[in-house]
């Protein structure tokens, strides 16, 4: 019994300093990034059990205001920080935020594989999703009504398309909303007059639309998204109050390492480098 207690206390002594020394790093913000950040955190904690990471969503704005208030160590954001936010932060911590691009994200539009169109301009896509164009013949296709598929309004992709393509205006009311990219891909594969959007998808029965810019049709390929040539792509950021150091630096090094970037590809985003 005595030896048992002794071993227990020695075990406690061994464990306790470990937990008390271990830093807890909080990561908060963009719902687009939250799944990826959780994967990063899981892998990182497997390698560095001493560091504890807490990843929560809430939205880019929520993350950045938490950074300003000092309640999070890292803010995730799917948009660049605003000047006003940076000013508030400078007033609190005497330095502007450190911005680090951690992944890239691009939205692909799909049509059924029987559709003879290969490319549309961003304006045409915009008109289709605003409901101003409702027939394929108006964009050079067959005389058939366009069946528009969209995502539920809780989706980050929904917001991205709304902000970047529709310039903040509302989707057409006849856009059918489906849960998840897989559901959209499946619907477009079965609907010969359908159009949908989502992350990069490799599925039977659908065709990825290229985006026409001038005379050039740009495919939503990895290199075009990485180079920023594809117009419907964006960078996803981590923001810190100061230059990364300690645990935060270790985590960021992991995120930007080939392994971390490979995880980004796995989750459906694109690497920054």
């Amino acid at each position, binding site marked *: 019994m005595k030896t048992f207690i002794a071993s227990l206390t020695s075990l406690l002594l061994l464990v306790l300093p470990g937990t008390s020394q271990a830093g807890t790093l909080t990561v908060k913000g963009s719902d687009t990034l939250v799944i990826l950040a959780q994967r990063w955190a899981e892998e990182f904690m497997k390698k560095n059990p001493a560091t504890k990471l807490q990843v929560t969503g809430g939205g880019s704005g929520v993350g950045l205001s938490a950074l300003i208030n000092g309640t999070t160590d890292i803010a995730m954001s799917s948009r660049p920080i605003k000047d006003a936010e940076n000013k508030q932060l400078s007033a609190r911590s005497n330095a502007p935020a450190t911005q680090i691009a951690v992944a890239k994200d691009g939205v692909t539009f799909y049509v059924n594989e029987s559709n003879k169109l290969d490319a549309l301009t961003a304006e045409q896509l915009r008109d289709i999703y605003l409901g101003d164009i409702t027939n394929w013949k108006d964009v050079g296709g067959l005389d058939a009504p366009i069946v528009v598929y969209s995502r539920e*309004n809780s989706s980050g992709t929904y917001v991205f398309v709304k902000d970047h393509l529709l310039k*903040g*205006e*509302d989707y057409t*009311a006849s856009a*059918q*909303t489906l849960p998840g990219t897989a559901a959209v891909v499946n619907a477009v594969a079965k*609907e010969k007059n*359908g159009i949908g959007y989502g992350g990069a998808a490799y599925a039977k029965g659908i065709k990825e639309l290229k985006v026409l810019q001038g005379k050039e049709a740009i495919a939503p390929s990895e290199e075009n998204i990485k180079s920023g040539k594809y117009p419907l792509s964006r960078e996803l950021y981590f923001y810190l109050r100061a230059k990364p150091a300690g645990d935060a630096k270790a985590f960021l090094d992991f995120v930007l390492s080939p392994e971390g970037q490979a995880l980004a590809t796995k989750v459906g985003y694109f690497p920054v480098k």
Partner: protein
Amino acid sequence: MDRQVSMQGQGVVGMAVVAPKLSSAARRRQLREKVIAGIITAMAFTGIAALVLILVFVAKEALALFLDAEARHEASLSKMFLPQVARAGRPATFVWQPVSSVPKVSMIPLFIGTLKTTLVSMVVAVPVGVAGALFAAEFAPRRLREVLKPTIELLAGVPSVVLGFFVLMVLASFMQDTFGVGSRLNALVAGLGLSLAIVPVIFTVTEDSLTAVPRSYREASLALGATPWETAWKVVLPAAAPGILAACVLGFGGAIGETMIVLMASGNAAIVSASLMDSARTLSATIAAEMGEVVVGSPHYSLLFFLGVELFVFTFLLNMLASTWTRRVLKRLSGAGA
């Protein structure tokens, strides 16, 4: 409640008179009876208490819509029920776009969507369910009936997500290939899927109420020279009318609240149109689809709870109407019998 009290009252009075003559064993038995009765009463009231608590909670969350200044501005009653200008330079319309720089929160498209899918499901499920029950109760040979009833009731055990998946993958494609409709997922397909879910409910309750009609009714009718069909149609069916109505109300309640099937099969576009071939967005599917990511306490959050209150009120009103009607029919039937 009153009956409960009076029964307990009677028990106390009875005991006061008889008590001195009771053996201890009998008294213990009586006490045990009382305890059991108390437990059962408590159980019965747990259900009621849960219902009241749920209603209070949902209503409380929805109430913020009318108390909070920001919510009142964003989702006033006029914005919910009157046409609004959604895009500059366009006529005013009913639009449901709660996530937007200027949220549009018209409930009309959701009402229309709910009405369309529910109506389709009732139009299909009531005749099928009632006719099936009539066949099973009146005409089917005993052997067939013993197979038919459990099989249809088994359909009620199929999870709605499975039905929804079947409708999404098989039924929707079949309908499009057969009728060539513009939109693969639409109110008709969703309504048909819903009817799969509520036919077993209507069938079971109707069948029970048909079987409960006294044999003497049938014997009297047949003795007067009516054919079996005339007996079933003109005597048994009217006699079971209250039960059949209850079955329809149960089915309607199930259809209006059913979420998974319509979420998967209706396409969820909030369109104002009378066509059954257009996509539809229902109240329940809207709550399910949007509750996941909504900011707690925001106007949008309260709005979703308000949709829940509306669903509750609809079913409650319908139940009340149905029960008053049932009582009237019962009175008439028993009056005719006397």
